[in-house]
């Protein structure tokens, strides 16, 4: 492994550690303390004392932090204050459902937006290019819940009745066992990220198509298909890969609102419930997870750039 890659990894770990400090500090900001915040003002002193004990609130702040962060690293996230269930148990099925949603969305969005970008670049300045440029500009502006509710009105309640408006699952049922419930939430995410990736792909492709080596390849008499897919796209795709990774990172937050729109049983909807209940162990766990995904995807973006850029690849050895 090279120095550059290690440096990026170390920076990622450092960032995660600083994030853990912020997430932990959120509990300290609770008015009163976590125990009274959960039980409310009318709780008996006995119950408050018991909960304080359970939450280790009698330890020093440093000990509390070390216990918490040690738990996070070893995969034990504490007990939900609202349901008294272990957080890991509470979230385990939901993590799968959210991952399924993000996976489906990215498997559709990334190839679609790359193809769309290439297609737009090849029709540069023609009417279809202007139309798709406007459409992507509009979509990029819309908040994800506006897109989601638009899809509900269009495909679930008011115009067509093709998909469920609410993603109901039987207890214990996984989202991939009833894929129909994931269609509209995944489509919302696809519509939210596609404009960003396709616009950067278009711009980069336009630039590459004007380069000398593409002219050269054409002059050599290569077929247009070979010129585009063998020579132009591999060079134009670098910035698109970076933006795609950043959009995947964005989805870590985007799923929260989208899952809430469809009552989709994932970690995002769990986070909204937990915020309402002031269930800090769940809030902290989901926040750490989302930030972890965010940092990891940024790392992927960096590594992908190093891998596909010859100059950096050699420098990295």
């Amino acid at each position, binding site marked *: 492994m090279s120095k550059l890659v290690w440096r990026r990894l170390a*920076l990622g770990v450092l*960032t*995660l550690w*600083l*994030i853990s400090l*912020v997430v932990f500090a*959120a*509990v300290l*900001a*609770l*008015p009163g303390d976590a125990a009274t915040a959960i039980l409310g003002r009318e709780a008996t002193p006995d119950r408050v004392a018991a909960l304080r004990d359970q939450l280790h609130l009698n330890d020093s702040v440093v000990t509390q932090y070390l216990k918490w962060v040690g738990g996070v690293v070893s995969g034990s996230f504490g007990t939900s204050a609202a349901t008294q269930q272990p957080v890991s148990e509470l979230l385990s099925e939901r993590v799968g459902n959210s991952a399924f949603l993000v996976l489906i969305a990215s498997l559709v969005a990334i190839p679609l937006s790359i193809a769309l970008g290439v297609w737009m670049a090849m029709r*540069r*300045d023609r009417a279809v*290019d202007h139309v798709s440029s406007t459409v992507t*500009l*509009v979509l*990029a*502006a*819309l*908040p*994800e*819940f*506006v897109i989601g*509710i*638009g899809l509900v*009105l269009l495909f679930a*309640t*008011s115009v067509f009745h093709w998909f469920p*408006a609410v993603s109901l699952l039987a207890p214990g049922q996984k989202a991939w066992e009833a894929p129909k419930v994931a269609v509209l939430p995944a489509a919302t995410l696809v519509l939210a990220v596609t*404009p*960003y*990736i396709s*616009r*950067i792909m*278009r*711009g980069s492709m*336009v*630039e590459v198509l004007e380069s000398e080596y593409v002219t050269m390849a054409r002059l050599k008499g290569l077929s247009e298909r070979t010129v585009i897919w063998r020579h132009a796209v591999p060079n134009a795709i670098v*910035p698109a890969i970076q*933006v795609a990774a*950043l959009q995947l990172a*964005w989805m870590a*937050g985007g799923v*929260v*609102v989208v899952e*809430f729109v469809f009552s989709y049983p994932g970690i995002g909807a769990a*986070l*909204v419930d937990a*915020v*309402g209940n*002031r269930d*800090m162990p769940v*809030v902290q766990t*989901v*926040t750490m997870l*989302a*930030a972890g995904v*965010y*940092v990891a995807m*940024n790392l992927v973006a960096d590594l992908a750039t190093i891998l596909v850029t010859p100059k950096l690849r050699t420098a990295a050895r």
Partner: protein
Amino acid sequence: MSDQTVDTAVNLGLEAAVEPVPGGAVLQRRPWLGILRNALRLGRTKIGVAIVALIIVIAVFGPLAAPHSPTEFVAVPNSGPSGDAIFGADALGRDVFSRFLHGGLSVLWMAAAATLIGVGVGVGVGLVAAYSRNWLDDVLMRTSDVVLAFPQIILALLAVSAIGPKLWLIVLVVGVSHMPRVARVMRGAAQEVVERDFVKAAEAVGEKRSRIVFGELLPNVTSPLLVELGLRMTYSIGLVAAVSFLGFGLQPPAADWGLMIYENRLSITVQTWSVLLPVLAIGLLTVGTNLITDGIARAAIGIDRTSAR
């Protein structure tokens, strides 16, 4: 940036007006005015301004025109349009149209305040980082990275869960979550300017550092600054409305577009208007601000901010 952007700008003969004057300090007294004037010549900017103006008029004068009080019981809950309530009644029997007319101002002022905080602090941090070129630069940028690692909506929810659904808190957190994103852009833009001769000249005559950062650097990065303002406004509207929509913004019985969607989303099949009106208004507003931003970006050649959130 896309070549089309250059083409559009060149066709309009803009490059001379927008390019910072090399070598000298700012010759044009108000460079941002020039950019805005050029942006307004583009069709998309005009459409954007018209949309945003319409929404502002609804939000500001709506409460005066509302036929009912936003909390008054007027009809059977979730009943359809009638003579008295032209868009029907919401889940609690209140007039949908009156609540819609009352509900826009909160989104607007909160988003605007969050944008000003985020862009203001972000510009300061970015310029100081670019100018310092030492440990301070590293510290500022690493701190930004930490804030950057939280998806914006999650940072807002974390703050709300700790402190409670306070409006000032939502404004502050949305602003803070914009800060590193703005700072990165501004630092990048200012790094070139720092190397120019007029900065060295200002240093040589012993100008104060704050004078150099805000008197010399700032006027030379107005184009990215204006684009950031527009971009962050678009995202602020989405974030502020999303927090309300999740139930953590304005609290009942307030009239607020995000809260309206939250309160009526479960009865969407029987009463579409109570959800559709606020969704349309928020959607239109963000599209309008994004059209203006795109117009500004095209007028100020050299920027295409369509790929990063």
